[in-house]
């Protein structure tokens, strides 16, 4: 793929460990430029660990993370922060700050004690407010926002950081459907402005609908990657989640939809049948 050769971010045989436990071993991956990449996979597959590795939160025990053809851990922290923004899963902010004040923190990599404020800061903050559709909420306290608005405020903070790359760790995990779509549409809008986006997404349907490129992970390894249509195949889903399903194309967007999802081995209509109970027992003893 031509996009891959000019990938701004990737890994070279990285190994990531939690204490002595290896989560990811010798993984190499690149993320296509200017696209939205979603990393999917079952719980504990290492997708969040990979994202933490990419954002320097978790240092790999071997291998390299390559940002614009340089090893990320040899670059000054501030330089990296001008190129790579992260929206982590758990977010806590200082007490009593407003949306605008939160977004201002995104300017930190561009500032220092003696360069605290300039025209570029102001422009970037106004742009971020506008991009996240928060212009009317700038002076509101962060605590008083709805979940979706708050998440958009955090994304706006990373927009103000003015980085070509944005990583998001389950950006919609605690949101209801309406707020999820609100956030994903913002992510698409940022992508259309040229940002390269890598996100960990739990919901496969949402990942298929809002990403250009899917990476499917299981037990710390990539088992499939490509366009959502290429990756969302019954055989791959069975390997990933241990489920069987049929696929339909969404009539309006053309993205795959999973229907008739069932546990592997269970019969087609298995709501109350004895077979499903047996399958449960099999699972329990397996």
């Amino acid at each position: 793929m031509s996009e891959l050769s000019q990938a701004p971010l990737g890994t070279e045989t990285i190994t990531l460990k939690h204490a002595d436990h290896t989560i990811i071993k010798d993984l190499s991956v690149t993320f296509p430029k200017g696209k939205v990449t979603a990393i999917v996979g079952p719980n504990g597959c290492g997708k969040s660990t990979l994202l933490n590795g990419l954002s320097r939160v978790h240092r790999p025990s071997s291998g390299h993370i390559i940002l614009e053809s340089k090893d990320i851990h040899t670059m000054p922290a501030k330089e990296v922060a001008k190129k790579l923004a992260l929206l982590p899963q758990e977010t806590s902010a200082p007490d009593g700050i407003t949306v605008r004040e939160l977004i201002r923190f995104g300017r930190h990599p561009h500032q220092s004690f003696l360069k605290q404020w300039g025209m570029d800061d102001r422009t970037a903050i106004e742009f971020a407010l506008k991009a996240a559709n928060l212009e009317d909420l700038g002076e509101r306290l962060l605590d008083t926002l709805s979940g979706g608005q708050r998440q958009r405020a955090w994304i706006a903070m990373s927009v103000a950081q003015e980085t070509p790359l944005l990583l998001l760790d389950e950006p919609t995990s605690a949101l209801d459907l309406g707020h999820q779509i609100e956030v994903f549409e913002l992510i698409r809008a940022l992508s259309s402005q040229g940002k390269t986006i890598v996100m960990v997404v739990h919901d496969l349907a949402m990942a298929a609908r809002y990403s250009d490129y899917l990476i499917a992970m299981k037990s710390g390894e990539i088992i499939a990657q490509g366009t959502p249509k290429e990756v969302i195949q019954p055989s791959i889903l069975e390997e990933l989640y241990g489920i069987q399903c049929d696929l339909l194309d969404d009539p309006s967007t053309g993205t795959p939809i999973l229907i008739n999802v069932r546990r592997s081995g269970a019969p087609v209509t298995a709501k109350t049948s004895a077979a499903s109970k047996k399958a449960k027992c099999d699972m329990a003893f397996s």
Partner: protein
Amino acid sequence: MSVFDSTSRSYVPAPTGHWLVAIAGYSVLIDKRAIQRNALLSVALLAISVLSLGMGTLSLAPYDVLLALLGKGDSMTQFVINELRLNRLLAGIFTGAAFSVAGCLMQTVARNRLATPGIIGIDNAAMAFAVASVVGVGVSFAPSAMALTGAATATALAFMIGGGSGTRGYRFIVAGLAIGSVSAAVSQLLLTQVHIDVANEAYPWTVGSLSGRPEEQIPVMGLITLIGVLSGLVLCYRFQLMAFSDSVITALGHTPNRLRFAAVVIAIVLTGFAVALAGPVGLVALVGPEMARAFARHKGLPLLSSAICGAIVMVLADLAGRTLFSPIEIPVGVITAIVGGPFLLWILIRKPKRSTL
């Protein structure tokens, strides 16, 4: 409020509530409310100081106090003010500010309001080391150097036992409590090993006292406090990021452990020197920053307000100790413990706020 910015040759409006000072490409934001509140706090400190100088066995009107400070008035008054009370007042202001700023920094590092040097045993350890040098266990360092060593040792121990970088809240505090009680016991044990007169003399200091502190140490303390507060203020711009999670700090281009290390070093130096001079008056570190937060309503780190509030608390507590049961003098550490204990309970039982700090 806009200011001419010489780099972009245009007016840059500052964020709401700030003044922008922009000269030759440099720009610093000044929080209007913080400046206003700190000015008020400074006036309060000044008033309390004059009051404190005037009160005691020889009671003086504020006017006479000011005259004496300017080198006028009768020689007796001048002697009482300039030779006796002024040193004590300055010792109180410097150590109070030092304790309080150290408390504010440690709270920020541990993301816990209880994690002040007094609670996590830094004071007591510094004291134990300082007592060791005074009662003479073959160690010939100055008390302040020993106190500093003690403070650093206790902090390192608390971090080691409490688990790395101090983000594990209560584990860190419990480790510190243990270190604190062992250290306090060591101080007492050391005092039992010396002649009763030496022990008696050292006693007020081991519970925290501003009475008869060595004069030559006071300017040193002033310098240390000034350096500590100034470096805190410069680094405050980064330290305020510690209210975010480590991932956000990293994403914004800072190294969380480096920020913590810098904050802890400043806190240790301030606490070590303050303990060497005034003893373990650690509760000031709890009350000062809390007062600062309540009064200054600062969104970042209220370091300067903490310094002033700490000084106010210390001077007031010493004044109370000197005058309440005159001629008997109550050590300042006892006063702050009597006031600080209930205050600690109030922090615990008060309706918890959503944030961690």
